[in-house]
C-alpha cells in the first residue's frame, strides 16, 4: 500500500483575501480524495494540532489548518507566542466573521488541489469546535465535526467576552451538512445538558447528526500531551471522525 503523505506550511488566501499561514497535510495519491479544514484550539497552531492534521492525511484526506493568529504574529516560531500576541492585541476571541473568512479560504485551497474530489468537511476542538459549527452554518460544506465546542448552546455569563453574542445554535436551520459531535460527560461547557439542547435543535431542524458523550471524559479529552487526554474516548473519537468523513466526503 502506498502511504506517503506530504505535510508543509503553505500560504493561503484568508478572510478578505489576506495571505495567511496554514499547515497542509495530504496523501500523495492521485485521489480523488475529500478535504478537511482543521480549526485549532485557543492555545494555537501548535505541534499537537499539526499532528492531528497529519493524522487526517494518513487517514486518506487532504487537510489544512489555517493559523488563526497569522496576522498578529506572522511567522512566529513558537505558536504560544502567537496566541499571546493575539491576546495582547485584543483579538481573542477572534471575530466570527474573520473565522468564517479563514475557513472559506481553506476550503478554496482544498478544492484547488489536484487530487481533490470537491467535497470538504470541517473539524475543530474547544473554541474551534464552536467555530466548526459556525463554519457549517455559514458555508456550504459536506460534513462537520464539533469536538467539545463551548457556547454553541447557552449564553455566556455576564462579563464573559462572548456575552451578548447570539448563541449559534439559533442558526441550526442553516446547517449545510451532517454534524458529528464529540463530548465528555465531565465537561461543564458544553455540559451533557447543553448537548441535549443541541440535539433537540438538530432534530427540530431535520439535520443529520450523531452526538456522542464519552463517559468519564472531560473537556479537551482528545488533546494529546495534556492532563485531560482520555485515551479510551480519544481512540473511539478518532474512529468516529474517520468514519464520518469517510461516509460524507467520499466521491
Amino acid at each position, binding site marked *: 500500500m502506498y502511504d506517503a503523505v506530504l505535510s508543509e506550511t503553505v500560504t493561503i488566501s484568508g478572510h478578505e483575501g489576506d495571505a495567511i499561514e496554514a499547515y497542509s497535510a495530504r496523501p500523495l495519491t492521485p485521489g480523488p480524495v475529500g478535504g478537511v479544514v482543521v480549526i485549532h484550539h485557543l492555545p494555537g497552531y501548535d505541534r499537537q494540532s499539526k499532528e492531528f492534521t497529519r493524522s487526517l492525511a494518513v487517514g486518506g484526506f487532504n487537510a489544512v489548518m489555517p493559523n488563526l493568529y497569522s496576522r*498578529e*504574529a506572522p511567522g512566529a516560531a513558537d505558536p504560544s*507566542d502567537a496566541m499571546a500576541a493575539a491576546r*495582547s492585541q*485584543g483579538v481573542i*476571541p477572534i471575530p466570527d466573521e474573520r473565522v468564517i473568512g479563514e475557513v472559506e479560504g481553506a476550503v478554496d485551497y482544498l478544492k484547488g488541489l489536484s487530487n481533490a474530489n470537491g467535497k470538504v468537511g470541517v473539524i475543530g476542538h474547544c473554541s474551534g469546535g464552536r467555530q466548526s459549527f459556525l463554519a457549517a452554518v455559514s458555508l456550504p460544506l459536506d460534513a462537520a465535526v464539533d469536538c467539545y465546542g463551548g457556547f454553541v448552546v447557552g449564553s455566556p455569563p455576564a462579563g*464573559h467576552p462572548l456575552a451578548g453574542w447570539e448563541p449559534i445554535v439559533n442558526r441550526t436551520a442553516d446547517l449545510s451538512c451532517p454534524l458529528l459531535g464529540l463530548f465528555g460527560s465531565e465537561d461543564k461547557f458544553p455540559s451533557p445538558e447543553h448537548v441535549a439542547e443541541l440535539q433537540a435543535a438538530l432534530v427540530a431542524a431535520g439535520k443529520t447528526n450523531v452526538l456522542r458523550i464519552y463517559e468519564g471524559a472531560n*473537556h479537551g479529552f482528545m488533546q494529546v500531551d495534556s*492532563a485531560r487526554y482520555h485515551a479510551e474516548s480519544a481512540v473511539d473519537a478518532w474512529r468516529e471522525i474517520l468514519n464520518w468523513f469517510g461516509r460524507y466526503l467520499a466521491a
Partner: protein
Amino acid sequence: MCTYLTEKIEISGSAKGGSGWFRVTDGSVYFDHPVHAPYGHTLNIDFLAPAQGPSARVAVELSAESARALMKAIEAVLDSAPAGLE
C-alpha cells in the same frame, strides 16, 4: 471551555527570557487553558515587549491556588517595604 477572559495592563520593568534580559511594556493576565501546565485551566501571565516581536515574552501558567498565593506574597512584600522606596 475556553474562557477567553483577559486583563491587559501596561507595565514597566524588565524580564529575563531565553535570550537574556529585556524591557517589558505590556502584561496579559488570563484564566484559560494552559499550553504546558498539567491542569484544565490556569492563571496565566505574559510579560511582553510587543515592539520586539511575539517572542519577546516571559510566560507563566499557574494553578489557581498558586496564583492566589502569589498575589498574597506580592501584596505582603510591597506592604512591608519601607515607605518611600516605590
